[in-house]
């Protein structure tokens, strides 16, 4: 993939406006749709506090301003408060992305004082049974308590529910739950198929009829509640004919740092072959963002193949998602097969057709829960769709 016009980069490369720190892969939940790498147990030791603070300072100096603190479960780090305090002093807008497990009144008070701007709380379902089943925990009541803490500490109520075949029929109940919790923003994020979700795709991909019902329910709910609740319905891209502008293009605005300090242009990018992703233990953020081969590789258009290379839409969607291209076709430089112009689009329509059959059959599912032991045993993702 080295033949092509010279990269028109450097001056054109803007700052990493969006910084995501995946502080830890430890997580009390075992969600079947988690995008964390299935091989997370093999990832090296977590960065110590001082290194995270240095990353915050270096990225802020480049212009990073939106900060996500995620994981795993970021509350599993007992230094979350000093990390938030430093980020606040530097001028970041700080989003905590959490399951709520580990949140106490004492901690939310400390995080508020440290300058945390916003908490996004995840639910797995509207029912205790499925919430707890999908996460393989007993956490449903706890989440409701955390929602109450979020309200009491005067944060906007922002809920995230990942949708898939097993809970998508509950979308009305999920929205009713969100309303009863006083949610101002609700993200109904259909599963994207990376990590554990890729492993479980044959169980999770909904049918088109399920999706259309969920969209209709969401529309009706929106009309009823008006502007007091903003609902984002993220359509699963397998049902589209054009790919998403993944990350707004790799290396353009988004920088993720994984628990061991590896810098990635997308949370899932570690799987991409042939790229050596730099580590903040060894290089500063400026040199990683502007100079490293891994971050420059998918900038510009030199890496593109047909049909992307001559496509009039290439500057709108950047050829879609590199990870999806790799997982489905074996070559990260191919067009995202979600695009109907891709010669591999049939791989996506076949997966959808299989989902139609599976929903119709509705046999008992055997799911792989996100688990440390299984992470050791499981094979890293390969360039072939999972057996269904």
């Amino acid at each position, binding site marked *: 993939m080295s033949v092509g016009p010279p990269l028109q980069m450097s001056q054109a490369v803007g*700052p990493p*406006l969006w910084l995501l720190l995946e502080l830890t892969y430890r997580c009390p939940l075992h969600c079947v749709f988690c995008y964390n790498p299935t091989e997370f147990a093999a990832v090296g030791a977590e960065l110590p506090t001082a290194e995270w603070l240095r990353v915050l300072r270096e990225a802020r100096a*480049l*212009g990073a*301003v*939106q900060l*996500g603190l995620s994981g795993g479960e970021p509350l599993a780090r007992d230094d979350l408060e000093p990390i938030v305090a430093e980020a606040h002093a530097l*001028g970041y*807008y700080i*989003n905590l992305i959490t399951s709520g497990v580990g949140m106490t009144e004492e901690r939310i008070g400390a995080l508020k004082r440290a300058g945390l*701007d*916003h908490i*996004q709380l995840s639910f797995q379902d509207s029912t205790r049974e499925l919430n707890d089943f999908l996460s393989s925990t007993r956490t449903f009541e706890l989440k409701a308590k955390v929602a109450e803490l979020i309200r009491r500490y*005067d*944060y*906007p109520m*922002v809920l995230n529910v990942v949708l898939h075949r097993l809970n998508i029929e509950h979308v009305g109940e999920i929205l009713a739950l969100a309303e009863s919790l006083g949610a101002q*923003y609700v993200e109904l994020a259909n599963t994207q198929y990376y990590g554990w979700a890729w492993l479980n795709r044959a169980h999770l991909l909904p049918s088109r009829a399920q999706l259309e019902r969920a969209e209709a329910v969401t529309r009706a709910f929106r009309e009823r509640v008006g*502007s007091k609740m903003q609902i984002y319905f993220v359509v699963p891209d397998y049902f589209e004919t054009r790919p998403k502008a993944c990350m707004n293009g790799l290396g353009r605005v988004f920088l993720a740092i994984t628990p061991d300090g590896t810098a990635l242009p997308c949370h899932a990018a570690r799987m991409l072959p042939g790229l050596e992703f730099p580590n903040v233990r060894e290089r500063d953020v400026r040199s990683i963002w502007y100079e490293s081969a891994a971050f420059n590789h998918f900038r510009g258009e030199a890496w593109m193949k047909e049909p992307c290379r001559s496509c009039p839409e290439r500057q709108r969607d950047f050829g879609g998602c590199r990870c999806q291209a790799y997982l489905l076709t074996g070559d990260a430089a191919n067009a995202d097969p979600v695009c109907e112009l891709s010669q591999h689009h049939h791989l996506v329509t076949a997966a959808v057709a299989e989902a139609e059959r599976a929903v119709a059959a509705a046999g008992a599912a055997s799911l792989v829960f996100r688990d440390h032991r299984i992470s050791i045993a499981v094979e890293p993702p390969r360039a072939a769709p999972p057996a269904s």
Partner: protein
Amino acid sequence: MSALSGAARPAIAPGMRLQWEPAQAAHVLLYPEGMVQLNGSAGAILARCDGVRTVAEIVADLEQTFGAADLTADVTAFVELALERRWLELRA
């Protein structure tokens, strides 16, 4: 949303934050998992929405600062848009 009074006192809505970003050479509005980069006039208007000054006072200040006349319609239209998008709220 219509007929915004010149006596209204707009303020940045809760959960939103306005700040100057040198790297973008622009004011930005930050909110849960999002950011809007503002052009010069939008930044100048929002930076004056402190919940204390009225729309009429903001207009007067902008006219003086930028040596312009008749900004009422432009400022009112932008404040209405910002209210609709929940970037701003009105204070009593």
